[in-house]
């Protein structure tokens, strides 16, 4: 399943494209590391779920989408929005609660949405986005448009009723939706081993008549290829698919997590299979030079530092705007 670094690049992907992926993955990691630090410093409050360790999933899947396609995201959603080309200044500002943030400070980490990029929104409710994804796909189908929807979820989300109902609708109506399950081995503390009576989560799709594959979620090429096939299937009118991307989160589930449910050794073992290191080795083996990778890393660090600077110098929202967005306005404006 896992490709070795010595293998050539998959045909359709160029070195240049792969370097772009590396930049995205590094941006996701640096962004979330920064959020982690800001939490520790008491500059970000509430809760936040970091995507560190899982970067190849969002990056690989979204690389296989076309303009106009859409995704529904999750509580662990920073990576999805960054991979879509999201504005990290506005993301950082949102996490710091500033008026220049994506949601003007109304939403925070779990509610970032950017419809212009095709992000229908992160979500604070486990599996909450799945029926919405199916509905977006229905919208495309009814309007005879060829766009595709990717519905991201965690492993834990597959045990919510919303998943089961959404999967069945997608299947019986042959909707253009791809369920991408980020199997990072745990819900909060509940492990996949304890919470499923299945060998692999992908097996669940069969009960709905949905084809499914399992991929190494830490290998961006495997993710990208599987996503490309599933998205093509959806776009051609052949209906939904499910991809189980096997990965791991390095950090605690969220702010409240004391890591009591897993061992240091397990975390260390997964760190040996880091998706970013894996991609770097691969690029080097295929002709990229180390200094250009280091250059990308520096540029990413600078961009995230700039985002923080932007956020910290942005104004706080004024409570006079509190009721502005509760309802859309009659004249079609929003806030």
């Amino acid at each position, binding site marked *: 399943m896992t490709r070795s670094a010595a293998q050539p690049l998959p045909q359709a992907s160029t070195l240049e494209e792969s370097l772009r992926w590396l930049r995205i993955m590094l941006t996701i990691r640096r962004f979330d590391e920064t959020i982690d630090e800001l939490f520790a410093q008491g500059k970000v409050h509430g809760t936040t779920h970091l995507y560190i360790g899982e970067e190849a999933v969002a990056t690989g899947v979204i690389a296989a989408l076309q303009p106009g396609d859409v995704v529904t995201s999750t509580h662990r959603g920073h990576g999805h929005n960054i991979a879509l080309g999201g504005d990290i200044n506005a993301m950082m500002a949102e996490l710091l609660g500033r008026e220049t943030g994506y949601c003007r400070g109304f939403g*925070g980490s779990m509610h970032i949405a950017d419809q212009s990029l095709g992000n229908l929104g992160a979500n604070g409710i486990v599996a909450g986005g799945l029926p919405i994804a199916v509905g977006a796909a229905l919208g495309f189908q009814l309007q005879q448009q060829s766009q595709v929807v990717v519905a991201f979820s965690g492993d834990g989300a597959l045990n919510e009723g919303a998943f089961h109902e959404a999967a069945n609708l997608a299947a019986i109506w042959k909707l253009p939706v791809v369920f991408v399950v980020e199997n990072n081995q745990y*819900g909060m503390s509940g492990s996949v081993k304890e919470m499923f009576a299945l060998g692999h989560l992908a097996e669940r799709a069969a009960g709905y008549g949905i084809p499914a594959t399992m991929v190494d979620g830490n290998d961006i090429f495997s993710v990208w290829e599987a996503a490309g096939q599933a998205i093509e299937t959806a776009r051609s009118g052949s209906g939904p698919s499910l991809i189980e991307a096997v990965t791991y989160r390095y950090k605690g589930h969220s702010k*409240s997590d004391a890591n*009591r449910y897993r061992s240091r050794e397990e975390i260390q073992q997964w760190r040996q299979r880091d998706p970013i290191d894996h991609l770097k080795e691969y690029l080097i083996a295929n002709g990229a030079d180390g200094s250009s990778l280091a250059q990308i890393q520096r540029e990413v660090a600078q961009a995230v530092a700039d985002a923080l600077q932007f956020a910290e110098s942005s104004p706080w929202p004024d409570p006079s705007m509190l009721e502005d967005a509760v309802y859309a306005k009659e004249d079609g404006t929003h806030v």
Partner: protein
Amino acid sequence: MATETSRKLTMARAISEAIDLEMAADSRVFVMGEDVGPYGGIFGSTTGLFTKYGPNRVIDTPISESAFIGAAAGAAAEGLRPIVELMFVDFFGVAMDQIYNHLAKNHYMSGGSVSHPLVLMTAMGAGYNDAAQHSQTLYGLFAHVPGLKVVVPSNAYDAKGLMIQSIRDPNPVMYFFHKGLLGLGWMPSDDRAVVTVPEESYTIPLGRANIVRDGTDVTIVTIGAMVHRAVEAAEIAAVKGISVEVVDLRTLVPLDTGTILSSLKKTHRLVIVDEDYLSFGMSGEIAAIAAEQALEYLEAPVRRVAVPNVPIPYSRPLEQAVIPSTPRILDAVTYVTEF
């Protein structure tokens, strides 16, 4: 034998201790929910219980609220006494059918044949920037439907006594704990909720309000975390010569109407402080009771201090603006006294 004690507990510790005592005393009691096992509940409500009682009595569930809350109802019908945790009350939506249509109504619809004696405990409340799907109180929503009892403690002493009473109650009881009262290290918590708690078992009857501060000029009726804000406002008002009585309802269902009315007969002025949305909720209910049963005693219009009709915003200044604050409560107190 009651032991003399000055031991202070956080509300989280008081809740887990109450459950521990009932589990030790009654083998029918068991706990079920997400991350309640080795993790101890993300808000500490089941700390230590897994080690003591093992996986058959402290059961970790998948993220399947509809299934495990319904399963608790079924287990209760078969003679057990489940305590089931809904991690945040905001997640009720995915399980509401089991709660509203089954738990709440089965006893009535079956003419008393089927009953569901269980506790559905859940975290509520804002104040730490967790945004609109993790910050609501919503107790009014559950008090609205007949068949559920609704308990909302404001301090560790009440939390323990009310939990033990709730477990023993023959009905489904929804037990709300405010995250900002629990005394967790990782989020801000109101020190006023940390109080002396006896080590032994004791109960507080459901439906009995607590007058936490005596007064003669204004009655504040409130519940949960807002009790402490109301007391703070009362302390400031006292300096200005206004004597405020603070009534902590402790339970919404049953509601201690008697205590509300006798306080109004004394003070003639009513302020309601509610960390729920303003419209169609607890504050309106209390105001209606005052209008229906105590109008002749009132010397000023009733004032309500509640969350305006907006989802709870994330950003700190916005969130602080919607949660009832001490200055907003004081404004209401001043208004009714100067009317």
